């Protein structure tokens, strides 16, 4: 039947809960050392984040599902799930390794040459390499396959010319995995002609221009390529055929706990602010929000379990991201409403108000990054057999 949807009631195995306690203890130590602010209220500094990545790596928690021959631990996706969600909840500075761990590494494992795998993957696992993703361009965002930035064949490699935009943390990244045009699209297949490349960000001819964000964070960049040379062995996968390479990885990218936990801290602060004996209105509001959160987490764990079992829950994972990002986007507004009648006791409401202000500014991006709501609903509709 076209509308078959499956969410098996997956439970995290005991090993995961043991790991969870280890991760919590580790993060508590890091917080005690002052590595990061667990309320997420201050942004933290880059040196700390780099040093933190190396200590996470020392625990074996970066690339932990990858093959041992590249430095991985061959642990399960459910174990990785636990590390990811505990880091999110603690507001740990994962940006150095998160992109590589979630998608760049798996892409290299699947499509990289053996030489690239051996040189790059162990360094990711050691927490040394920060990755960014070069997809959007000034003229193409959601419409990925309209990308124009060119990779022109030259002796021993390619010359890249053009501009990527909204590239998060490109200014800090060591490598980018970017999508560049190696041929024109064809009449029969407008997705044809793009190739995935591994790009060393230190390559001559690459410059990053910062783009201010209304949240006050500094992530976005415009990345300009002027005759930047990429060697042949940095091609990832099939020339002109990058469009074939995107399906399963997207399921991982879309369904993780980071897709509904980005504003979670306002819910914690609300519970703190209402205290142990809430009025009916607050109690109902909190009860509904946690019921929704619990359901999202069960859906997300379910998708992780299905992926671990070798299934490809493409539609289910898009549904998790759609529901999850809409939820985390609405969360600050709902918390704001529920907090409206809380008496401002010193040391009580101020943290909530500060966190709420930040979450409110972040909220608009949540349903845009990594695939907009509209794109996701299109994918779900296709899965239902409507397109």
């Amino acid at each position: 039947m076209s509308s078959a949807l499956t969410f098996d009631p997956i439970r995290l195995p005991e090993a995961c809960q043991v790991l969870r306690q280890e991760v919590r203890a580790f993060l508590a130590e890091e917080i005690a050392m002052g590595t990061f602010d667990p309320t997420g209220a201050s942004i933290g500094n880059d040196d700390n984040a780099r040093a933190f990545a190396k200590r996470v790596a020392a625990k074996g928690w970066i690339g932990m599902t990858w093959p041992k021959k590249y430095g991985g631990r061959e642990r399960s996706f459910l174990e990785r799930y636990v590390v990811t969600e505990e880091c999110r909840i603690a507001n740990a500075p994962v940006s150095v390794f998160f992109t590589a761990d979630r998608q760049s590494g798996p892409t290299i494992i699947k499509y990289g040459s053996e030489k690239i795998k051996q040189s790059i993957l162990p360094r990711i696992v050691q927490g040394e390499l920060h990755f960014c993703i070069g997809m959007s361009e000034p003229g193409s965002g959601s419409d990925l396959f309209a990308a124009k930035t060119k990779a022109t064949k030259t002796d021993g490699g390619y010359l890249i010319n053009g501009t990527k935009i909204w590239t998060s943390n490109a200014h800090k990244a060591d490598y980018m995995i970017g999508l560049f045009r190696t041929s024109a699209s064809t009449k029969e297949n407008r997705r044809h002609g793009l190739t995935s490349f591994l790009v060393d960000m230190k390559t001559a001819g690459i410059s990053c221009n910062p783009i201010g964000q209304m949240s006050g964070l500094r992530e976005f960049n415009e990345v300009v390529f002027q005759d930047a040379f990429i060697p042949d062995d940095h091609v990832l996968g099939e020339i002109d055929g990058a469009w074939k390479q995107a399906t399963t990885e997207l399921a991982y990218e879309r369904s993780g706990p980071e897709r509904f936990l980005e504003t979670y801290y306002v819910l914690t602060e609300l519970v703190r602010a209402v205290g142990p004996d809430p009025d009916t209105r607050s109690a109902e509001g909190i009860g509904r929000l946690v019921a929704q959160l619990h359901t999202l987490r069960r859906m997300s764990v379910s998708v992780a379990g299905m992926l671990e079992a070798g299934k490809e829950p493409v539609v289910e994972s898009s549904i998790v991201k759609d529901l999850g990002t809409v939820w985390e986007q609405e969360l600050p507004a709902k918390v704001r409403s529920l907090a409206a009648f809380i008496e401002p006791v010193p040391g009580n409401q101020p943290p909530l108000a500060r966190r709420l202000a930040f979450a409110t500014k972040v909220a608009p991006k949540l349903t845009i990054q990594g695939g907009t709501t509209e794109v996701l609903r299109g994918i779900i509709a296709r899965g239902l057999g409507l397109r």
Partner: protein
Amino acid sequence: MKDTDSLIAEAAERLLGDLCDPQTVNNAKDDKWNDRLWQALAENGLIHASIPEELGGSGAGLSDGFELMRLAGRFAVPVPLAETMLAGWLLAKGGLAVPQGRMSIAPVQPTDTIALKDDGTLAGRARAVSFAREALHFAVFVMAPSGPRVALVAAGDCRLEEDENLAGEPLDDLVFEGTRPLATAALPAGLDQRSFLLMGCVVRSLQIAGALEDMLTRSVAYAQQRVAFEKKISKFQAVQHNLARLAGETSAALAAAGSAADALASGTADADAVFLEAAAAKIRCAEAASTGVAIAHQVHGAIGYTTEYVLHRFSLRALGWRDDFGNESYWAVELGKMLARRGADDLWPLVASR
């Protein structure tokens, strides 16, 4: 749709497909289908699937019983299969043998209590009991001076005030005045009125999830067939996005109800974690019913609003089920109070406990 690994559920799906086709039932001029359906369910051991054989059931696990409840929702089963299953479950918890025939359970509203008095009679009013007037027996959760017990009551021994739910199914008040039960039995420690109600919540959640599965399939099929402005309405992006949202709500209901059912069937020890599972299922499934029903009707347009078309069999039942065993507002308040009592720093550990 997750078509199940369970033989019992497979048999039930075949049987319901044959004898409980919603359009056939909807078109029927008389009630002959009703007894035929009940008889067939009974003959196939589907009425008390999860009850131990020595108490009169089929001896399958609780998870099979839950699977049947999702199917009951998917077929909008118009006989008291869920109510009889719940009644049998409660009786079996007290070690009482399960009588033949249709049953229902009471009380189903969180603020109703039925007392078992020292003289051995029952007193109290149970409001809004599903299918009460069709039941031969009731399994009643009663408060005795010694603690909670289950009482088996013959239908003729209590008074009935008729009403109906949104779908026109019986939803009657039961009045117990000097009612002498056929039998009573003590319930296991920990089976208080709240956990009894939560069991009902999980059953209704599964029924809602099943009904949403049908509404999604039906709405997708309708959109692929109906032509407007010279194309199939499934080609309009606005319609596609509405259906994508319906798929999201259906998924949320399936995941929440399925997870809660699994939590009850596998008997997790942590009471707060079980409470979170069951209450969250009822809250989220009720929300999914509200949102999902609106979308399914919107996609169908006027035809979905007619009596001859079967969408209402699913939509009105799903909406009605929101109210049984405590509605989503009630459980949200209860859940919110529990979470506030545990405190902010214990919220995540509870959510992540399983």
